[in-house]
């Protein structure tokens, strides 16, 4: 089949790098507020009815939102197999923790209000808190580690190997810069969750969400700025040393990579990418400011812009690197040497072009059907059928 040669391998790789970003951002924008609501639950909702009110704002949509995560995993597998192989096994225990938290969460939503007992319900409230806060933190920590470099190397047969003792796969991740990145991610998603609650609830839950939201927003903005400074002064970047083949077979070991300079050099080479951090700051800060206003929707829209900006910043700053290796820079995974084959990328692109607009359309329809606030009265009236 020659059809796939309609689009250059190099261009397909860039498209799939962009789509990777789309999926991560889609996940953060949708599942992000689910996690935020979970993590905020003990603070913004005190009584059982209030908690049910908060939970039922995400009740009908968390399943669809979570698919962004599943699809993200599937798409990385299909389009970036070496990334899928190295990162998930390299972050093994961290991944397990995320999985455990993400498994707890749906079960918590669904099962919490199916029994009357207070002990049962408060246990699931904790599960929802953990299921929201822990992944939000770990995703940020993972991004921090990617910027610092991950200790893996590849054998000539491209078998991924990890250096250091097993616990390094968990505690080794918790270096100061990565913890800062985790904090940014957590604060950002907490603000996002608060923005969602401000839109979807009334009464005390809305009041508290509007009160807590700005705090997390400012925290995220400060953390994001600090991380930028830290990247400028404290962390070495990665760069190709010689000629780079951008349309050859995927084998990370074929290109030479050196460590040195700064990640922020990218802003000298491609000044236009500064728009990404700018959007991050504007979005987060405007969201924080708009909680006090009367608009229901504006905190959420600004928060979305902020998340979009922050995630794009990471991608654009690192391009073309995806997963640099701290111990063997040559093994670093980049856009040019860790994708699927030309044909697979093409086939997957065709599928995405067909199905992604459909997904966006029916997701939008579902949200529009569910439009409007969830009130305490709704919960009381439909106590048998809602979460």
């Amino acid at each position, binding site marked *: 089949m020659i059809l796939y040669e309609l689009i250059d391998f190099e261009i397909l790789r860039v498209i799939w790098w962009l789509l990777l970003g789309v999926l991560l951002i889609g996940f953060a924008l949708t599942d992000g507020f689910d996690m935020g609501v979970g993590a905020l639950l003990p603070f913004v909702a005190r009584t059982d009815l209030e908690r049910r009110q908060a939970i039922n704002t995400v*009740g009908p949509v968390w399943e*669809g939102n979570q698919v962004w995560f599943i699809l993200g995993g*599937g798409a990385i597998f299909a389009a970036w*197999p070496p990334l899928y192989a190295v990162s998930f096994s390299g972050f093994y225990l961290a991944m397990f923790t995320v999985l455990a938290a993400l498994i707890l969460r749906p079960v918590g939503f669904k099962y919490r209000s199916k029994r009357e007992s207070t002990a049962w319900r408060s246990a699931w409230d904790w599960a929802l808190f953990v299921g929201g806060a822990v992944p939000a933190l770990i995703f940020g920590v993972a991004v921090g580690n990617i910027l610092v470099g991950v200790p893996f190397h590849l054998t000539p047969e491209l078998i*991924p190997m990890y250096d250091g003792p097993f616990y390094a796969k968990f505690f080794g991740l918790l270096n100061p810069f990565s913890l800062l990145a985790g904090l940014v991610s957590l604060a950002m998603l907490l603000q996002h969750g608060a923005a969602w609650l401000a839109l979807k609830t009334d009464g005390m839950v809305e009041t508290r969400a509007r009160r807590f939201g700005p705090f997390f927003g400012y925290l995220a903005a400060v953390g994001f700025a600090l991380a930028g400074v830290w990247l400028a002064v404290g962390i070495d970047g990665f760069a190709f040393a010689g000629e780079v083949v951008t349309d050859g077979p995927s084998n990370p070991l074929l290109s030479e990579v050196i460590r040195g300079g700064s990640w922020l050099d990218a802003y000298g080479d491609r000044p236009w990418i500064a728009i990404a951090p700018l959007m991050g700051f504007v979005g987060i800060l405007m969201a924080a400011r708009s909680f006090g206003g009367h608009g229901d929707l504006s905190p959420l829209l600004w928060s979305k812009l902020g998340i979009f900006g922050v995630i794009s910043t990471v991608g654009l700053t690192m391009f073309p690197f995806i997963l640099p290796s701290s111990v063997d820079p040559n093994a670093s995974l980049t856009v040019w040497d860790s994708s699927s084959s030309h044909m*697979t990328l093409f086939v997957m692109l065709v599928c995405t072009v067909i199905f992604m607009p459909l997904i966006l359309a029916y997701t939008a329809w579902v949200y529009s059907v569910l439009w409007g606030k969830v009130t305490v009265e709704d919960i009381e009236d439909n106590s048998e059928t809602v979460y």
Partner: protein
Amino acid sequence: MELDVLELSRLQFAMTAMYHFLFVPLTLGLSIIVAIMETVYVMTNRPIWRQMTKFWGTLFGINFVLGVATGITMEFQFGMNWAYYSHYVGDIFGAPLAIEGLMAFFMEATFVGLFFFGWDKLSKRAHLVVAWLVAIGSNFSALWILIANGWMQNPVGAEFNPVSMRMEMTSFFEVVFNEVAQAKFVHTVSAGYVTASVFVLGVSSWYLLKGRHIDLARRSIAVAASFGLASALSVVVLGDESGYEATLNQKMKLAAIEGMWHTEPAPASFTLVGFPDSEARETHYAIHIPWMMGLIGTRSLTEEIPGITELVEAAEGRIRSGILAYDALVQIRELKESAPANLTAQFEAHSDDLGYAFLLKRYVDDPREATEEQIVMAANDTVPTVWPLFWAFRIMVGLGFAFIGLMVYFFYRANWKGMTFPRPALHLAVWMIPAPWIAAELGWFVAEYGRQPWTVDGVLPTAMSVSHLTISDLLITLAGFITFYTILFVVEIGLMLKYIRKGPYMDVAETDAWMEKHEHRLRTHDGRVPGISTPAE
């Protein structure tokens, strides 16, 4: 058994996959049964059908959520525990998984929320469409997952790329229309339909035994028996199709299932029962049915089905050929562009057997240095342990026929005996509830354990696929999964039982309104209006 990273990883994968499959079959079948019930509701407007839709829908929801939750583990576990597998075949295997998300899972998960929360927000017809989209989404999910799995059994449409050291796709069409995948898909979803039918039948029978919710139970039995009968027949017929496909590509799996130690003159006999003995390479106390194996396996009287001993000899030859491919591959990698043409030719001539050289990696780092003894050992490794396969398969097939019997009986009573069911039959139906799960798990066991020692048949051995983790990593996650999954299982069963005991939720106002409207039609000759539903006790 020595517990190394490989064995622990296999144990973890088997455990989490089989656990996931406790929830999947019920989702596959119950989504359709619920959609059928809602269709009847929309067509007839009878509140009882809405009540049934909501009642079975609640049970569907409790089950669905654990299917989703445990599916997350599956999507990420390949990368976590099978890193080299993910690298080596991700170019092909990843695609159906991603398409599953794009095409099916997104649809089912987005609409399932609306199914539960949209009763008052949508028109009847729109809600019905949502119910069907959930059912279709679930079933399409299964299609893509089985395309991925089918490729592991029969790796078509791909070839090895020596530069990127992995398999790469050569034909998406072949991967999607892999006969093995198609046969497995229909067999698996039918098994899901049987599971849900037996579940609905069993729970309804329990209500009849207790004299509760009679109307709901009878109608549910009518749906379950018809749907279940068609599905039970399809499971067996298409299971046979799977067997036929296995003859064509996984001869060793077939030979192991049948305990066929040696090639028999065609048409081979089928061993009904017996005690396979791997040491002696024979099946003791075997009862044979002449000709039957040849007919099932080859659909002819003249084709031979090779036995285990002959297949091991063939594997030995392929290992020797694989070593030549491996030798050329290593040299090409070192010499890069300057590799002479004869090396490339040597590689191409033997590259189909490269995976067989990898079988030696268990014994020696460089397959080229393998001794004669190691080659023989590696060839013997291509035989999976026979007795578990032999028995698992026979129990599965036995259960398959039992489901047909059960469904025929209930279908007959429902349609020709005025919906009357003798108590022993109802008791039997209740006791049969766990049986489809047993059959489904055994089915997966046969398919995947029978694939050993390969993750991708003939291409990549399991021993090479595994991530380079430590025993501690595995012990932590294995302990975590066991604890966590056990708790979830107890919680799930507890909730299921609670909601089954509680019975359907009756919307009194709606039922009364309907009764009033249709009173003239319902009034019997003695002037009484019979209840639409048996009131909750």
